């Protein structure tokens, strides 16, 4: 069962060709990590999946809905596909609890009590139930990111997109966030993760996609083999750089 399907997708920012001939099918329950040098189109690819960036041409199906069709309700898709951002994007004017409950209440029309019960369970899962009444500005980066993951889970999405979720964190905070992501992966969530954490890619991911210059150069379900024997020269170069680093 496919969750996300790219068919011959192209994306331009003005004259800049950001995504070139993307063909990629992601099944339910897959944990796909997308790696590659900066500016390779990883984030753009991710952001097209929930319609934050429109595609220029080709076909993109998410949960069997066609994103290029103007009749498609983007809010429907976003309800099913959560997103975790590099800079968290928590609502600065809302408490942690409200950050998690607002979507379910406004979009899923859950009542307050039901939404809050679920939110508290999720906050417990990410280890932050004691911060429910805090505002985002009072949290560390790692805590903010865990709240953001709880916010995304509260919508009961069918897939979650992670856009460099640990890149803005202090090194000692990264472990906690990756632990939460590992937990979600174990529960069978479909995850697409743009990351520089090769450890996560190796241990948790069950598929790896390597991008450069807006193109998918390698796509492998044997993650260990990809790191041991990259085929493309660009991938070889990239891997040797991060390992020697």
């Amino acid at each position: 069962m496919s969750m996300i399907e790219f068919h011959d997708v192209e994306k331009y920012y003005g004259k800049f060709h950001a995504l070139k001939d993307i063909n990629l099918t992601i099944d339910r329950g897959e944990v796909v990590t997308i790696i590659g040098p900066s500016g390779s189109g990883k984030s753009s690819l991710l952001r097209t999946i929930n319609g934050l960036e429109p595609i220029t041409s080709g076909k993109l199906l998410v949960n069997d809905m066609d994103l290029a069709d103007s009749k498609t309700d983007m809010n429907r898709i976003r309800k099913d596909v959560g997103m975790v951002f590099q800079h968290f994007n928590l609502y600065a004017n809302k408490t942690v609890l409200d950050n998690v409950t607002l979507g379910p209440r406004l979009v899923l029309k859950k009542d307050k009590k039901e939404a809050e019960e679920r939110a508290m369970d999720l906050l417990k899962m990410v280890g932050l139930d004691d911060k429910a009444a805090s505002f985002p500005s009072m949290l560390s980066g790692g805590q903010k990111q865990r709240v953001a993951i709880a916010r995304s889970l509260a919508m009961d999405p069918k897939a979650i997109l992670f856009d460099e979720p640990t890149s803005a964190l202090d090194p000692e905070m990264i472990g906690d966030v990756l632990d939460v992501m590992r937990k979600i992966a174990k529960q069978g969530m479909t995850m697409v993760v743009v990351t520089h954490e090769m450890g996560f890619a190796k241990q948790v991911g069950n598929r790896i996609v390597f991008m450069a210059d807006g193109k998918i150069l390698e796509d492998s379900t044997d993650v260990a083999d990809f790191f041991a024997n990259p085929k493309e020269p660009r991938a070889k170069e990239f891997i040797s750089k991060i390992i020697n680093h």
Partner: protein
Amino acid sequence: MFDILNSNWGVLGTGFLTTIECSVIALIFSTILGTAFALMEISPIKWVHAVGRVYVEVVRNIPLLVITMFFYVVIPKYVLPITGFAAGTIGLTIYTSAFIAETVRAGIEAIAKGQMEGARSVGMTYGQAMTQIVFPQAVKVIVPPMGNQFINLVKNSSVLAFVSGFDLMYQGKLIAAATLNTFDSYIVVGIFYLILTLPLSYFMRYLEKRWDAA
């Protein structure tokens, strides 16, 4: 100076009240109109954005007196008869709304794009994201410069004097002409304006401080 006050108390009082009346009406409607045009300016729909942009650029680059005269002279001649007070208040509303639109737009744009994206990513509509997340944060950015616009508005209401609007400035002019004591007359008028604008100025400063502390 006290002679002027004593013998013209009634006239100055009416002028003072007229100035307040004009200011309050213009303040309410220019805020509504300005916010509407600000929302148009930030709209992702191209033609809506263009309408907002053109309105703001045209209106804020024409003198207030010209806009007011248009309503005082042109509208009664070709459309319907309106009083000087109405012409002045409409002119002031339209003129101020362009500046308020710029203030509101800048405030909304000061809120990081990520706040909107975070809200949209859970499926909130543009309107929900605006009202729940972006606007409440933008208000704190908007209010201090908005205070300046309101103070300008009160002072600019003196444009009524040019169109027989019977405001404070108009009455002051009449008293100055009648008593030939121009110096004292205009000092008294100035003090009346200060009675309106100084509290407004202090209130804005108080709000700013309270929000900075929070």
